[in-house]
């Protein structure tokens, strides 16, 4: 395993009275793909959203334990800076209702880049990085909502890349897409791993097997098992993991 970028220790999270995460500890290694799997409501998305503090926005949320990004407690650092470094791609493609160019330039502009030429370069680089440049280079001024689902999701990935994050969190990024668009995203994610640390929540166990280096299995708020993907799927160490991956529940 590579050196850890994110270290989680004894993380508990409550939504009001309900405990959604129970004493989670795990390390996320740099420049690799970590898959989070488990049945609906197991806490995997909640865990993902804790890593860039998007859970802060939920009313009544309470968190204990520590999450460190590059050795720093994320609850002590500036949240906007954290989210710049730890980008996110959502389940449903959510481009802004503005032009393709402005979608990508939004993040860099937010962080103070106004020079047109510099922005042009960032936009091109981000779109190339997300393997969508060739499709959209002639219609950068067109509304992003005119794209279909797959390209929209790659645009959202490009938008996340444009602020030069170190980590990309992906919350079931292919669950709203057809198989062909899904496989293009998967290819892209595997390419991105050479430069970014990727944490991906997925419902689709085959997807976890295909793309991830290590897999964490969540159940009812517990982290049941965390191991190299190959090992977790071939010789699961916990009976519950085995039951889940062989399809006996979930």
């Amino acid at each position, binding site marked *: 395993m590579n050196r850890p970028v994110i270290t989680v220790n004894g993380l508990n999270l409550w939504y009001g009275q309900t405990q959604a995460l129970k004493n989670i500890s795990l390390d996320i290694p740099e420049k690799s793909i970590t898959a989070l799997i488990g049945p609906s409501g197991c806490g995997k998305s909640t865990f993902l959203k804790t890593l*860039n503090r*998007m859970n802060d*926005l939920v009313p009544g949320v309470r968190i204990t334990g520590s999450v460190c990004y590059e050795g720093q407690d994320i609850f002590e650092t500036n949240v*906007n*800076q*954290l*989210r*710049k470094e730890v*980008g*996110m791609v*959502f389940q*449903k493609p*959510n*481009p*802004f*209702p*503005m032009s393709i160019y402005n979608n990508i330039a*939004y*993040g860099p502009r*937010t*962080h103070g880049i106004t020079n047109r030429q510099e922005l042009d370069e960032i936009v091109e680089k981000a779109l190339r990085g997300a393997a969508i440049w060739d499709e959209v280079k002639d219609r950068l001024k067109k*509304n992003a*909502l005119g794209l279909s689902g797959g390209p929209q999701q790659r645009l*959202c990935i490009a*938008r*996340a890349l444009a*602020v030069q994050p170190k980590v990309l969190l992906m919350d079931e990024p292919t669950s709203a897409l057809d198989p062909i668009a899904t496989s293009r995203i998967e290819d892209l994610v595997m390419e991105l791993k050479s430069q970014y640390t990727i944490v991906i929540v997925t419902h689709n166990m085959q997807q976890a097997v295909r793309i991830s280096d290590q897999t964490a299995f969540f159940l009812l708020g517990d982290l049941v098992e965390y191991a190299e993907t190959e090992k977790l799927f071939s010789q699961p160490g916990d009976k519950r993991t085995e039951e889940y991956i062989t399809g006996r529940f979930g």
Partner: protein
Amino acid sequence: MKSKTNLFETIVHGIFLVLGLITVGCVLLITIYLIISGIPAIREIGLLDFLFGDTWASTAAQPQYGILPFILTSIYGTAGAILLGVPVGFLTAMYLAKMAPKRAKSVMEQAVSLLAGIPSVVYGLVGMMVLVPGIRSLFHIPDGAGLLAAIVVLAVMILPSIIKMSITALEAVPKEYEDASLALGATPEETYFRVSAPAAKSGIAAAVVLGVGRAIGEAMAVMMVAGNAANMPDSLFQSVRFLTTAVASEMSYSSGLQRQALFSIALVLFLFIMLINAALNFFLKGEKKP
């Protein structure tokens, strides 16, 4: 059995149709009545002299019927009200839709609703008693009643519609957009102004147009604070007369061509309102499309 149900449904259907036609009939009646009674004076005076004549002297020995002062006053007055009211209304809506704590929001929203329910004569009264003397002493002028007072009163009067429609538009912005912006490291405020507001722009534009409609059609409050002399609106403190107040202030004692000319003014006002409605429909349609 079946035909009985059908008969019943036909009757119910008929009743609803008749009720619906009453509304349409009223609109048609008013339109036709305005056109019929508005045209003769325009014919007699001449369209250009009527619309662009800069003197209104309906009771002079040599009467003149130029309504340019009223048209310009209505336009300036409305534009001024929009200039003042829209920023205040939009920012209030932004605060209430996105930032306000729950309690503050519910209290302020009720206040906004109340503001909408205050009769216009009360606005006029308060304007007369507070605003007009205030303007007089603030700017050291002999009389505070005039264009500025009317603009301020109108600006306050259009606030509720602007605020309420803008809130609706801002709250309809999908949360996904805002999440995406926050996840890029933007602050909540940046997110609201750079993502939420642009995403709600057609609804906000509709709110502005609605405000224009309210402002241009308001008569009572304006009559009480605008001074009501048929002057060209060449200064903010000028005593002026709006299209609405031109009709209202002379109707009771008018006769002959003068009365017909008042109908023509009403017709002009009606055309303005139609235009504004068309604009409103345009923006509301734009909102439905992605």
